[in-house]
C-alpha cells in the first residue's frame, strides 16, 4: 500500500496517543454512536435483512471463487462498450498507468471522486510527483486533503474533526488550492458546506480529467457503479472529457441483477439511509454524453494473494460500508490513524496484514487490535467473520505458516519479538496439561498470597499500571472440592 504509512508505530503505541486525546475521543464517540444507532434502526426496517446478508455473502463468495472468469468477462464487456481496460499488479504499476494516461491528455490537474483504492495506492502523491494536482471533491476527503491530514474512517474520512476544526482548516487552506473560503465563515454545517460547494464548483467546471474508484463492477454488462451522498462524484463522473477508474478486482459482481442486494445493504449499513442520494452507473462511453474516453485500471495489489488463503479471503467480500468501524469499541477509542492504513477498524485489521503482509511492526500488531468481541461480525452486511480471520492472522504472526506472496506459496517463520510470550504460553500449557502440577502451583500461589505485590514487573505491569490484581484465595476450587465433596459427607 502507500508509503505514507511506512514506519508507523505498532498499534498499541499509536492507540495510546489517541486514547489520551480528549477532543478526538469525544469526536469519535459522538460520531460512531450516532451512526451506529441510526444503522440499527435502518436495518431493523427490513424484514428480510438476514436473507439479504446471506445473499450478499453468497454472491461475493461465488464471484471470488470464479474471479478469473468474471474479470475476463468484465474486460470484454468494458472493451465492447468503448472503454479501455488496464491490469495493475501492484500500487506502482497502477500509479504509473494513471499518471501516463493523465499526461497523455496534456492536462496537469484532475478531480477525484472519493475512492479507497486510490488512497490505498497513494495515487495523489504519485500524481503530485509527476507534476499533476489531484483535487479531492468529496467533502470529507477535501477536509482531510486541505488539512494535510490522513483519512481516519472509510466512509467519514474526517470523522476525527469537529466543526470548529473544519472551519479553521477551510479558512487557512482553501485559498492556496483555489477559491478561498468566504469571509466571515462560521462553523454552522450549512455555511461550511456552502464554502466547500463554491470552492469545488470552480474545479468541476474546469477539469478535463477525473479519477474515480467504483463500488461495484458488473461483469456481464461492463457497468461501473458509484454510490455517494453529495453528488460531487457525479459531477466528476459526467463533466470531464476523460474518466479513469481504479478499482480493486474484488469489486466484481456477475450480473446486473446482483446489484439489487447491495443497493439495499450498502446504504443502510454505511450511512443508515434506505437509499443513497446518488447512484451513478456508466458502461463504457456514449457519444455526446459524459466522458469521451473511459479507462478502467483493475487493481490487484495483494488481492490475488489474499484470495489464495481460504480463511482470510472472506475479507475480500468487504463492500467498504464501515459498519464494523462504527460499532468497534477499539476503533472508538483508538481512532482510525492508529491502524496505519487507509483501511482502519476491524476490517482494516484483517485486510491490511493480508494485502501488505505481516512483515512490519504495525501489520504484525493489527491482528491483536481487537478484543474479539464480535460486534463487527454481527453488523457486517456480507457476514465477514472478522474475529475468525483475526485469530487466523494471529496464528500467522506467532506460529508462521504457509502464505502466498506475489503468487508464490511460501512458508512464513514466526515473527520476531514473541519469544518471551511463546515461552510463557508453552510453560502455561505444560502446567495446565498436568493437573497435579497445576494443583501444586495453585497451593504455592495461595501460600504466597500475603506477599502478592500491588504492581507487577515486566509484561504484568501493563495490567497493574491501571488495575488491581485479583485477590488470591486461600484455597483453590480443586482443593475445596477435595476437602468438601470427594470424601463422603
Amino acid at each position, binding site marked *: 500500500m502507500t508509503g505514507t504509512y511506512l514506519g508507523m508505530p505498532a498499534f*498499541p503505541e499509536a492507540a495510546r496517543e489517541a*486514547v489520551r486525546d480528549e477532543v478526538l475521543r469525544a469526536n469519535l464517540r459522538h460520531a460512531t454512536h450516532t451512526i451506529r444507532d441510526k444503522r440499527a434502526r435502518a436495518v431493523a426496517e427490513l424484514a428480510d435483512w438476514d436473507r439479504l446478508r446471506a445473499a450478499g455473502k453468497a454472491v461475493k463468495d461465488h464471484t471470488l471463487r470464479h474471479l478469473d472468469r468474471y474479470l475476463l468477462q468484465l474486460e470484454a464487456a468494458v472493451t465492447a462498450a468503448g472503454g479501455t481496460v488496464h491490469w495493475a499488479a501492484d500500487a506502482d504499476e497502477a500509479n504509473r498507468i494513471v499518471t501516463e494516461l493523465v499526461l497523455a491528455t496534456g492536462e496537469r490537474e484532475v478531480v477525484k471522486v472519493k475512492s479507497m483504492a486510490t488512497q490505498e495506492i497513494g495515487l495523489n502523491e504519485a500524481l503530485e510527483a509527476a507534476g499533476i494536482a489531484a483535487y479531492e471533491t468529496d467533502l470529507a476527503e477535501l477536509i482531510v486533503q486541505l488539512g494535510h491530514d490522513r483519512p481516519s474512517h472509510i466512509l467519514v474520512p474526517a470523522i476525527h474533526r469537529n466543526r470548529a476544526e473544519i472551519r479553521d482548516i477551510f479558512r487557512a487552506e482553501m485559498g492556496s488550492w483555489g477559491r478561498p473560503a468566504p469571509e466571515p465563515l462560521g462553523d454552522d454545517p450549512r455555511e461550511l458546506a456552502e464554502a466547500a460547494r463554491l470552492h469545488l464548483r470552480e474545479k468541476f467546471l474546469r477539469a478535463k480529467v477525473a479519477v474515480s474508484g467504483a463500488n461495484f463492477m458488473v461483469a456481464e454488462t461492463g457497468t461501473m457503479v458509484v454510490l455517494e451522498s453529495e453528488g460531487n462524484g457525479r459531477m466528476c463522473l459526467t463533466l470531464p472529457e476523460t474518466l479513469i477508474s481504479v478499482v480493486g478486482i474484488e469489486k466484481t459482481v456477475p450480473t446486473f441483477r446482483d446489484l439489487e442486494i447491495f443497493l439495499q445493504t450498502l446504504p443502510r449499513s454505511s450511512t443508515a439511509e434506505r437509499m443513497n442520494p446518488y447512484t451513478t452507473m456508466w458502461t463504457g462511453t456514449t457519444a455526446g454524453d459524459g466522458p469521451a474516453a473511459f479507462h478502467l485500471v483493475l487493481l490487484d495489489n495483494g488481492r490475488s494473494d489474499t484470495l489464495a488463503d481460504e480463511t482470510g479471503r472472506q475479507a475480500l467480500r468487504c463492500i467498504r460500508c464501515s459498519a464494523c468501524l462504527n460499532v468497534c469499541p477499539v476503533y472508538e477509542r483508538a481512532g482510525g490513524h492508529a491502524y496505519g492504513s487507509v483501511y482502519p477498524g476491524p476490517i482494516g485489521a484483517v485486510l491490511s496484514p493480508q494485502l501488505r503482509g505481516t512483515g512490519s511492526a504495525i501489520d504484525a500488531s493489527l491482528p491483536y487490535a481487537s478484543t474479539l468481541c464480535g460486534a463487527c461480525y454481527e453488523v457486517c452486511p456480507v457476514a465477514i467473520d472478522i474475529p475468525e480471520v483475526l485469530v487466523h492472522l494471529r496464528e500467522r504472526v506467532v506460529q508462521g505458516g504457509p502464505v502466498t506472496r506475489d503468487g508464490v506459496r511460501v512458508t512464513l517463520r514466526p515473527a520476531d519479538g514473541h519469544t518471551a510470550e511463546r515461552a510463557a504460553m508453552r510453560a502455561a500449557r505444560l502446567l495446565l496439561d498436568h493437573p497435579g502440577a497445576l494443583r501444586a502451583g495453585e497451593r504455592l500461589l495461595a501460600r504466597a498470597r500475603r506477599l502478592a505485590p500491588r504492581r507487577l514487573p515486566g509484561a504484568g505491569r501493563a495490567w497493574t499500571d491501571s488495575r488491581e490484581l485479583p485477590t488470591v484465595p486461600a484455597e483453590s*476450587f480443586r482443593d475445596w472440592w477435595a476437602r468438601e465433596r470427594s470424601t463422603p459427607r
Partner: protein
Amino acid sequence: MRAALFVTCVNDALYPRTGIAVVRLLERLGVAVDFPAAQSCCGQPQYNTGYRYEAEPLVRRTARAFAGHEYVVTPSGSCAAMIREHYPRIGRKAAEEGRGGELAEAAASLAPRVYELTEFLVDVLGVTDVGAYFPHTVTYHPSCHGLRGLGLGDRPRRLLAAVKGLDLVDLPGAEECCGFGGTFAVKNPDVSTAMGADKIRAAAGTGAQVLCGADNSCLAHLDGLLRRADSPLRALHLAEILAATEEEPLP
C-alpha cells in the same frame, strides 16, 4: 440428574467462590455434581493469542476429562464458546494439516454436551426462579462471548429478575465490550483500560451496588479497575448471586 462441572482455570485458581456457588446452586436444584479432576484450562488464552498448537493438548485433555458426562456445565460464557465454536475449528485444522481426525472427533463429541450455566438452568432444568435471595440493586454486564458467541439472550437477566429482593437496573451500553479480551488487556493496555473505565462509569451511573457478570475474566478486569478507583461498586459473578438464599446469604 447428574452434571459435570467445568470450573475453568481462572475460577479454579482465582475465583473458587464461583465454583462453590455453582455446586451449591445445582445441588439445591436437585442436580448431582461431578468434578472430574483431570480437567484444566480450555485453551482459550493460547488459541485466541494465535498459539493454536499449544491449545491442542488442552482440547484433547478437556474432551477426555468429560468423555463420560451427558451434561457439562461451566460458569463462563467465553470458555463455553471456546469449546462450542472453536474446538471444531481446531480439530478441522489439525486434520487438514495431516495430524489425523482425533481432535475433530473429540471436539464433535464434547461441543454439544457443554452448557454455559444460564443455558443449563433455563434450557435444561427449565427454571428461571432458582429460589435465590439477594436484597441489593444489581446491574448486569453481558460478556461478549456469552452474548454474541453463545447467544445467551435474556437468560441471565431473567434469572436475575426472579431473585427475591433483587432490584435489577439496566446498564447503558450493556452490549459493548468491557475491554478485557484475554491477552488484549496487556497487549493493548491503554485501549483496554479506556473501555473498562467507560464500562464502570456506566455501571456506577445506574446507582447499582453490584455489577454482575457471568465471566470472571471480564469481571477481574472490571473489578481491578473498580478497586483501583476505590469505587463502592462491587463486581460479582452471577452464580454467587443465584446461590445466595435467605438461609445462606452471600458472605
